[in-house]
């Protein structure tokens, strides 16, 4: 059992000023997940009649993408995983007892409260073209088209994105390129995505800009922060798709 000094961001609402709040959390077991440590903090706060720290979380299995947080200056903390899958043994083993917790910071992710941010910009980017336009009931037999395994695998790697936003939080420019490129690349590698590929990439990039995300300067920090190991290869794919779309428009 260990104790930790937690500095965590508190902010009442989107328009209020926030600040870091200090707490000591005691009785933390190495097998506890980081969020269970925060649950513990919140139980303490509630018992003291204070409002708990708001943070996003849901499945706690590392797949829904709801949990966020920048922990000790890194998206999802020191390991390459989601915050919900980060365990306190990681701090215990490294003898770290000071922990700072901040929300994902980006203009495209306005703060709702404390460490909860609004990531609906991602939804709007997908709405701009991150889909295949097929109505229910229109599909041919699933095995009508064979898809070469390397393409299927590349598409899958890109499709593994959980939309958590760690890439934006890690990027010095708050760029959403890794997120956008993952979807562009997923669909660009499949024949199903072919018909709309030009409109898709242009529209998604436009929306990404409109949502106020920064531009990509190829720092690679997004890939390092991604809990699903989405590769910056996808960004190269997006760039190629973008050029193809522009050329397609001219010719």
């Amino acid at each position, binding site marked *: 059992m260990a104790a930790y000094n937690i500095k965590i961001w508190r902010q009442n609402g989107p328009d209020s000023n926030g600040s870091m709040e200090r707490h000591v959390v005691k009785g933390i077991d190495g097998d506890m997940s980081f969020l269970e440590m925060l649950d513990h903090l919140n139980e303490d706060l509630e018992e003291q009649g204070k409002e708990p720290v708001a943070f996003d979380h849901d499945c706690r299995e590392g797949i829904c993408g709801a949990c966020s947080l920048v922990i000790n200056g890194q998206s999802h903390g020191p390991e390459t995983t989601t915050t919900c899958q980060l365990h306190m043994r990681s701090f215990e083993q490294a003898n770290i007892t000071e922990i700072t917790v901040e929300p994902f910071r980006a203009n495209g992710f306005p703060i709702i409260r404390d460490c909860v941010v609004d990531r609906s910009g991602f939804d709007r980017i997908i709405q701009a073209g991150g889909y295949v336009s097929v109505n229910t009931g229109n599909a041919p037999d699933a095995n009508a088209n064979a898809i070469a395994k390397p393409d299927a695998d590349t598409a899958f790697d890109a499709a593994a994105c959980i939309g958590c936003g760690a890439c934006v939080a890690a990027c010095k420019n708050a760029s959403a390129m890794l997120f956008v490129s993952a979807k562009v690349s997923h669909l660009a590698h499949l024949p199903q995505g072919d018909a709309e590929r030009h409109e898709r990439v242009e529209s998604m990039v436009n929306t990404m800009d409109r949502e106020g995300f920064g531009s990509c300067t190829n720092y*690679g920090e997004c890939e390092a922060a991604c809990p699903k190991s989405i590769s910056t290869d996808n960004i190269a794919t997006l760039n190629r798709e973008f*050029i193809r779309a522009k050329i397609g428009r001219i010719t």
Partner: protein
Amino acid sequence: MSSNSNNSLPGGITTVGAKMLVALTGIALILFVIAHMLGNLQIFLAGEQLNEYAHKLKSMGPLLWVARIGLLSVFLTHISLTLVLTRRNAKARGNLTSPEPQIRITGERYINGYSYKTATTASRFMIHTGIVIFLFVIYHLMHFTISPEHPTPMPADSLIDVKKMVIDGFSNSIISGVYILAQLALAGHIYHGASSALQTLGLRTDSTKFGVSKLGILLATLIGIGNISIPVCVMANII
């Protein structure tokens, strides 16, 4: 709030498109830097090789001006787009609404800073090395092209001893120091910029990945060593 049309760049250009222009102009500038360096390295050759080269350039007439204007516009495009993108990126970064002043000063969006996992120093300080290079270029032009002894541009047919001018200049250790620092900044800029440009242009694929990742370090090393060798050799009395 988000979904604000103010987030778009002027002229309907997207950030991806703008980055591609930055990459293209960057590649052009790298090619210029390489050519420039190869020209300068003629100082190591015996006799009047460098001076002859300089005079040949000077005697290109209107072509020289075409090249100069072309280079200038590439240079200005590269700089203005990066400045626009950098300002936009700074805005994109923030949802920090703390009144605490130290945050504003450091320009950091995380109160305790962000601990980078893989980003190289070169990649994080592109705008800084870029500004150093820009200032250096102005100084460099003042120094050699529009030198203090020649307040007006030198006439094309005037025969000055370029080699002597270089040696005289670099004999001053302060001037040499400035040049060396600037070349280090240039090497850092190219170290990230060369590979980054190819990624931005979508040229990094499975088969080119290795080459693209090593191109930056290769060019940075060659250009760095090549350019720095001149002041160093002058000061060491090798030339």
